[in-house]
């Protein structure tokens, strides 16, 4: 059985969970087995509707101790669920929660983990999962040799598929240990689209000259319902918050559309964004290296091009 870990925050199922559900369902079909979901804690959503993403059952462990993420507590619960449900493959999203929990589950169950998978496994000779390595500059095909196998899927690498079913929801009775990590405050940027989940990202570099010029970037992002990002020197200079810094040493993203404004396209920057499906570069220097990695480009002054782009998108949407 393929067991899919359903992640949530603020009582809502995360978008990345639908992606891993679709992935897990496709994997189960390939293996000729069933796909089931595991949810720790509680959400507002009706769990039966997860059947629409290809799972036959949803196992829920309701316990207040699961409201905050303590990786130790979560991993124990997932591992116990895997054992009691007899799962062979466990699927996580390679998001913040997956990065905290999946490795612990792997060590606990002595299960091989491929972290950052980008495709379904090839099962013709072993269980070979393609994953992102060298920060998006290459892929490795990794064989998992243990009996239980764990995959964490890179966000935005699998197409969500609605199958139109309903799932049965079952309470799973497992002991949940006492959390040792106490969350004392949560600081979420309200109203913004989270960078790692965004389908469209609008990003600015040193070419924008100063923080006061970010309004036009934000306007464009707003029109596209996009997240905003920046290059490293921009975050280092304090023009933008650290959590917007993308690249080799920042966040790695793979949106459908990445719009780079006034960014030269240094190799370390590209390492964080080169898995984006479509890249648009706006730069006044035709020799900027970013154009080599781009799908579409405008050679021009960002201060003229960006407001026009925002207007044109408004027209398209209106």
């Amino acid at each position, binding site marked *: 059985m393929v067991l899919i870990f359903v992640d949530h925050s603020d009582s809502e199922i995360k978008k990345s969970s639908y992606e891993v559900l679709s992935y897990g369902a496709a994997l189960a079909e390939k293996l000729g087995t069933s796909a089931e979901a595991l949810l720790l804690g509680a959400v507002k959503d009706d769990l039966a509707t997860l059947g629409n993403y290809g799972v036959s059952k949803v196992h829920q462990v309701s316990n207040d101790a699961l409201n905050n993420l303590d*990786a*130790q507590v979560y*991993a124990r619960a997932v591992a116990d669920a895997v054992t009691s449900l007899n799962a062979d493959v466990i699927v996580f999203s390679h998001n*913040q929660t997956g*990065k905290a929990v999946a*490795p*612990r589950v*792997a*060590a606990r169950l*002595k299960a091989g983990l491929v*972290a*950052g998978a980008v495709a379904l496994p090839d099962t013709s000779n072993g269980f*070979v999962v*393609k994953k992102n*390595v*060298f*920060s998006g500059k*290459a*892929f490795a*095909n*990794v*064989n998992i*040799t*243990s009996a239980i196998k764990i995959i964490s899927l890179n966000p935005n690498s699998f197409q969500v598929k609605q199958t139109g079913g309903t799932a049965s929801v079952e309470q799973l009775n497992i002991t949940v240990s006492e959390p*040792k*990590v106490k*969350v*004392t*405050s*949560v600081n*979420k*940027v309200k109203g*913004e689209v*989270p960078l790692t*989940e965004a389908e469209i990202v609008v990003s600015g570099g040193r070419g924008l000259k100063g923080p006061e010029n970010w309004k036009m970037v934000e306007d464009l992002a707003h029109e596209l319902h996009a997240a905003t990002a920046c290059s490293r020197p921009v975050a280092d200079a304090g023009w933008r918050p*650290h*959590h917007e*810094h993308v690249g080799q*040493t*920042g966040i*790695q993203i793979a949106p459908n559309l990445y719009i780079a404004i006034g960014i030269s396209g240094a*190799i*370390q920057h590209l*390492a964080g964004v080169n898995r984006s*499906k*479509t890249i648009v570069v706006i730069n006044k220097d035709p020799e900027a290296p970013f*154009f080599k*990695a781009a*799908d*579409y*480009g*405008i050679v*021009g002054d960002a201060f*003229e*091009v960006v407001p026009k*782009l925002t207007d*044109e*998108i408004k*027209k*398209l949407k209106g």
Partner: protein
Amino acid sequence: MKILVCISKTPDTTSKISFKENNTKFEESGVQWIINPYDEWYALVRAIELKEKDASIQLHLISVGGADYDPVIRKALALGGDEAIRINATNNDSYFIAVQIAEVAKQGGYDLILTGKETIDYNSSSVGGMLAELLDVPYISLATKVEVNNSAATVNREIEGGEETDEVSLPVVISCQKGVAEQRIPNMRGIMAARTKPLKVIEPAAVEALTNVVSYELPAPKAGVKLVAADNVQELVRLLHEEAKVI
């Protein structure tokens, strides 16, 4: 207090990535090796800062790797730290690495174990979590701030769309990223001192890897950029809408 920092070695960020032997091995010729930036700039520098405030702290570095790791370990020791341990084994299975570090950590009685957020070559973000599980201690991943007071740590960690602040008692494993500390450059005194700091080499524990790399591939090259004139932004929007279908 005892701190252990996990140091891995990675190709320099500007390295050209290519493969040899039928795409089964990374082509190392011409590659410059560095300390994995997350391990160096954030985990190690933060540990050094803590030691600067409290000289009684013992700071050890640990690596799982062959003799080719030694120059990178000396570079790390030049930044700071009392001694280093190298477990003499080459393997990129995260579980294998975590078990090796756990064996040493269990003996050493460390209060704080710091790793980088991920290696920039293997990008797994896994060793820290596995290590914490093997030691049965809490794990705080993707930290952006680490404060330690006596027997507890206060840590900010990245969550979707923001950060949270966690409190946890020691011992704990924390994976570090940007925000935790600032990059430093080793000085001459550090470099000289590093030469005589102990670098213990020990043999690995017997453990089977749970994964192995079968082959590597490079992404398909981009078709080439389509340029649109700066006074024809409308055309870009049309292409994004009709051709790329992304808006």
